[in-house]
């Protein structure tokens, strides 16, 4: 299968990434269900195999928006603005899924669906930034002003991501600290659980790239249609 960009260029990479991501999800699903229960949480630990990749995708998405926003401000190419928005759309969707899966995990383990502790509060700020990004986009009609304003939000909003990631270490929190700690390289997980999580993280990463590319192509066609109507 191939997608055709409006420029006529054929895109075989997006369907390949999509297929790879879906295959990875299937393998990850199988591995997660065959992994052992946790010594403390029992089978509840299975929520982790979805919750962690979902949260990872949110962080990834805001960095995608950051990268494309900077690229837009440097190159002034409307394509980068469309890609930044496509990445933010995925970020908004998956941040909602992260909160939902986290709430379902929090109730049986912590005892509450939600509490205003540092990790959860910084994550709520992340969602508010994503929502604000799209409110501003829909409010401004001039394409160049819209692209500039949303690039500014994309860049400023990404400051929150490292704060959110480190919040469990910097402040007292209810949320546990990182299991796979990127600052020290320590991993506190049974190998078969880690394998299932890693496969899911890879699958979500592939799906993220595929979805951003797919959304970029759709947005490109929408923009051309709009131009044809006005021009």
């Amino acid at each position, binding site marked *: 299968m191939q997608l055709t960009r409006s420029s006529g260029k054929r895109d075989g990479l997006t369907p390949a990434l999509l297929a790879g991501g879906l295959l990875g999800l299937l393998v990850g699903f199988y591995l997660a269900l065959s992994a*052992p*229960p*946790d*010594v*403390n*949480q029992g089978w509840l*630990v299975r929520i*982790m195999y979805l919750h962690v990749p979902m949260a990872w995708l949110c962080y990834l998405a805001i960095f995608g928006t950051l990268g494309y926003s900077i690229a837009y401000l440097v190159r002034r190419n409307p394509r980068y603005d469309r890609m930044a928005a496509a990445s933010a759309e995925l970020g908004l969707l998956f941040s909602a899924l992260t909160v939902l899966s986290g709430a379902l995990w929090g109730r*049986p*383990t*912590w*005892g*509450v669906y939600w*509490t*205003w*502790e*540092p990790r959860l*509060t*910084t994550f*709520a*700020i992340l969602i*508010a*930034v994503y*929502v*604000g990004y799209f*409110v*501003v986009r*829909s*409010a*401004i009609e001039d394409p160049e002003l819209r692209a500039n304003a949303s690039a500014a939000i994309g860049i400023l909003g990404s400051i929150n991501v490292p704060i959110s990631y480190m919040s469990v270490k910097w*402040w*007292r*929190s*209810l949320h*546990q*600290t*990182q*299991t796979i700690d990127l600052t020290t390289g320590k991993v*506190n*997980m*049974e190998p*078969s*659980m880690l394998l299932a999580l890693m496969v899911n993280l890879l699958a979500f990463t592939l799906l993220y790239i595929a979805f951003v590319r797919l959304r970029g192509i759709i947005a490109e066609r929408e923009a051309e249609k709009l131009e044809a109507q006005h021009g």
Partner: protein
Amino acid sequence: MKPKHIFGIVLVVGALAYLIFGGLSSNLVYFITPSEYFQNEAKYANRSVRLGGLVKAGTVRYNKDNLQLNFVVTDGVREVAVRSVGTPPALFKENQGVVVEGKFAGQEFQGTNLLVKHSEDYQAPKTGNYTPEQIKKIIQETN
């Protein structure tokens, strides 16, 4: 700009301001430890606070009839007796990190909500599944 857009922007900016200045600043210290309480008892008297620490081993008493739960929270230096009502979360056990929401009543802490911290370490149980004795014990405890 249409009114709905102005409304949307005001809403988001308001939410952000609330989260950053209201939510985050008061939650940067998510819970206080028993030692911190005894250092400044007057400050925490008669107001809702979160008390955090470990459940001291051998202090948990749970009455299944009236759901009264008593235990001691310790930070290794000072300790506070906690009284709360309700079935504790499944992960509640001795030496577990907990955060209790409630108020101090003299030397005792009156908990309204019991939250349990869990470890970031995920491991399989050592003996695989439950042994018949463990299952028997669980069934007895639920009766």
